[in-house]
């Protein structure tokens, strides 16, 4: 059952329960007020009428309050559901439309790049390459925002995946970088999530670290986990490495807001993996990802 439906149901149960309880109390008190007692008739009748009136007004007010409160709770809960539903609908449509638009733009730019690949006009090619790199960044930023906007609801499809085709796809995207892969381990991961993590790490190395080469190695650890090590030759990070990806920070002139790395950490946790950063052997940054290995 969806959380929103459960909320409405709980509100309704609360209303029925409290309303029944108060009704029972109300009826019981009214009856006891009307019951004959062994006291002088005149004063007893007067006291009984007075008590009855008091129970009636107190009870009616309480019942009305419970009824209104419960009704309001159900109404608000339903409004919240409708709001969430329209937000989901908006995001689904927005995501579909914007992704199709980026596809159109990228496909046309790539076709143009293919056609111009034999031309000697270096300036045109440079502009196109820049355009393609910017489209890729836009795509990544959009994907990060979409994943972050419903990160808690993001469901995984864990599949047995080979590293090589994933990296090959990244080599196509980051064609201006030299991406070297050694080892072809098989991991159990969500293809969208792992691709998003690798894209963020490589984009960071290129954009923030000005790296020109990224070396990716994969190896099987003793506990059937897979280690993926991503090492770049960029300028590294000016921030404390153990804090990378732990929170989203305000953007400054020298650092970004860290959404990409924050998302990497969240997605790795969801896939029962770990992520850790360390300084490169000579320069740059090393990121180590540990993930469960594929089923044998």
């Amino acid at each position, binding site marked *: 059952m969806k959380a929103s439906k459960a909320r409405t149901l709980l509100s309704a149960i609360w209303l029925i329960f409290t309303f029944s309880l108060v009704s029972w109390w109300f009826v019981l008190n009214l009856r006891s007020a009307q019951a004959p007692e062994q006291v002088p008739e005149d004063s007893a009748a007067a006291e009984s009428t007075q008590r009855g009136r008091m129970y009636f007004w107190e009870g009616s007010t309480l019942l009305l309050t419970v009824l209104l409160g419960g009704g309001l709770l159900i109404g608000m809960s339903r409004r919240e559901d409708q709001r969430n539903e329209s937000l989901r609908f908006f995001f689904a449509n927005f*995501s*579909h439309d914007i*992704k199709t638009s980026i596809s159109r733009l990228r*496909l046309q730019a790539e076709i143009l790049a293919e056609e111009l690949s034999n031309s000697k006009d270096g300036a045109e090619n440079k502009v196109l390459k820049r355009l393609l790199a910017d489209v890729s960044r836009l*795509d990544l930023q959009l994907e990060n925002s979409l994943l972050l906007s419903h990160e808690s609801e993001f469901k995984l499809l864990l599949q047995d995946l080979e590293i090589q085709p994933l990296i090959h796809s990244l080599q*196509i995207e980051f064609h201006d970088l030299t991406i070297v892969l050694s080892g072809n381990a098989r991991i159990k991961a969500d*293809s*969208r999530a792992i691709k998003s993590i690798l894209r963020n790490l490589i984009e960071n190395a290129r954009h923030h670290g000005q790296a020109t080469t990224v070396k990716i190695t994969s190896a099987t650890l003793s506990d059937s986990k897979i280690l993926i090590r991503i090492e770049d030759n960029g300028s590294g990070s000016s921030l404390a490495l153990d804090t990378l990806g732990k929170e989203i920070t305000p953007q400054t002139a020298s650092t970004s807001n860290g959404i990409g790395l924050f998302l990497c950490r969240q997605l790795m946790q969801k896939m029962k993996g770990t992520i850790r950063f360390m300084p490169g052997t000579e320069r740059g940054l090393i990121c180590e990802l540990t993930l469960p290995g594929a089923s044998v």
Partner: protein
Amino acid sequence: MKKIFLVEDDLSLGQSLFDRLGQDFQVQWEKSFTSAIKQLSEIKKCDLAILDVGLPDGNGFELAKKIREVSALPFLFLTAQADAESRLTGYQLGAEEFIPKPFHLKELLLRLNHVLQAHSTVNTLQVGDLQINFEELVIKGPGAEVQLIPDSEMRVLKILIRQAPQVVDRDLIMNEVWGAESELSHRSIDNIIVKLRTYLKTESHRIKTVRGRGYQWLAERNL
């Protein structure tokens, strides 16, 4: 030239794909669920289908189901709906690939060629001592022995081999070889399988009966 059945409702994206893929393949482009359904009879002439999921008048998953009812054509999804549920549905329907938008042209071409290559049946196939020649409709034995196979029976064999290791439904074989309007019974398919096993002699065990589902070709690695 290989033929691709493309279903994409976005006119600009569809046109770009049609133009670019058209350089390497013969492309049939349908812009809606309804028009794609109307062209289902053409599907058998295609080698691969590329399906968008979000169509204005239907759903790519429904379309994939309809395609599966009439043909064993391999298909892939090219879609902006890349959430876990959609991907799972896509793979459960038998999609070869699930390519999320926005995609890279090179990657699309690579995956497309990969699927086509995986599903292309070579003209000849060596099975143990036998050599099956799909073009000449013959099975050659160890000596000079040559057995002529009727076209329809060879097509059934071809489907089983192409779909391996998947189990092939009798209805699918009937639809693909004789068309959806055919009045052939399941018994006729069973008789053809008996004949094929006779032609295959010592390799007859390659065609496995899967009770209640159909037949399966056991390639070397599946034996």
